[in-house]
């Protein structure tokens, strides 16, 4: 019952054509002149930074502890002659929580409006990690789910049915072992497909099995949109209000909602001191 030994890797593997996505050009820290913005989100410790490095060619920030990526890192890559800016966000369990490092991820996903959001999930902890995927699908359907660490999952006897997962979620789901560079091409194809689709992808906006809750969210979101024209993500605002977010409630009562979402820094936990200007 010994696990299949992995083939020995040498430094040549990193530059081997077979191991690399043939159409990928890594642009390192130079995301200038990009056409599209791709966000990398995911629970802590799912391998976001490894995926980031595989796509940009950078060698930064990989480490195995919580809160490692404290601020967002940016890099660039080119695929099929289109330039992408890739934004690596700190790990987060939720778009609705109020902890400091998760706020950075949330602000970017909710208000930064990336062209594509890639959610990296751990194949060995899929059940838990899908929570964030479902939350992100509530605010955008321009999503690709990158199921990372499939090699490790296989060692634990777990295989993932990607076609089924894609169908259930309504967005592409691809398998990866980013550490070995496996699945990069599939990811790039899926990102490109979502980025270039003129309309929103199929995605499951209607996640709530509870009809009354869904009605309440839609109703409130409509009112928010009417009340504050041009507000980004009225649905997210509605969800937050229904959860009893005091900061948002105050902003609505005082007619400051538009200012608040234009400058979401104010949404950060009250205990966090103001950051000095960079």
């Amino acid at each position, binding site marked *: 019952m010994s696990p299949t030994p992995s083939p020995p890797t040498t430094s040549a593997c990193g530059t081997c054509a077979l191991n690399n996505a043939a159409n990928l050009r890594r642009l390192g820290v130079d995301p200038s002149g990009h056409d599209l913005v791709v966000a990398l989100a995911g629970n802590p410790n799912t391998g976001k930074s490894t995926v980031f490095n595989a796509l940009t060619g950078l060698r930064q920030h990989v480490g195995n502890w919580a809160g490692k990526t404290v601020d967002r890192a940016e890099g660039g890559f080119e695929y099929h002659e289109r330039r992408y800016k890739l934004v690596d966000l700190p790990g987060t*369990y*939720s778009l*609705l*929580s*109020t902890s400091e490092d998760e706020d950075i991820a949330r602000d970017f996903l909710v208000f930064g409006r990336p062209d594509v959001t890639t959610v990296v999930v751990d194949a*060995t*902890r899929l*059940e*838990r990690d899908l*929570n964030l995927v479902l939350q992100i699908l509530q605010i955008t359907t321009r999503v690709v789910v990158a199921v990372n660490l499939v090699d490790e999952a296989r060692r634990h006897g777990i295989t993932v049915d990607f076609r089924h997962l894609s169908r259930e979620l309504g967005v592409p789901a691809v398998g990866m072992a980013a550490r070995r560079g496996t699945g990069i091409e599939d990811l790039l194809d899926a990102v490109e497909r979502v980025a270039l689709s003129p309309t929103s992808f199929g995605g499951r906006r209607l996640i709530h099995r509870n009809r009354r809750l869904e009605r309440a969210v839609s109703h409130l979101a409509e009112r928010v949109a009417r009340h504050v024209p041009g507000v980004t993500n009225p649905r997210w605002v509605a969800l937050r209000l229904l*959860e*009893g977010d005091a900061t948002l409630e105050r902003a609505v009562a005082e007619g400051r909602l538009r200012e608040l979402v234009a400058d979401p820094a104010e949404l950060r936990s009250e205990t966090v001191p103001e950051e000095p200007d960079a």
Partner: protein
Amino acid sequence: MNTTLDRLSPGETATVTALDVEGPQRRRLMDLGILPGTRIRAERSSPLGDPTAYLVRGSLLVLRRNHAGRIHVDRHQG
């Protein structure tokens, strides 16, 4: 048998029945996968008995006793 999570001994499993927590902490527990219906196993306690590590949906979570005490569970027999 109904009890609270902090009363499980290492190795015992239970199903969550209710969260007696409000606000951001309730949200947090739910985001970490603790909801009514979730199966939890007490894994091990730190030397002083607090905090305790629990296995939830394939990952290990560490909770303080004052949080665990507000998670109502149905302890599995046997």
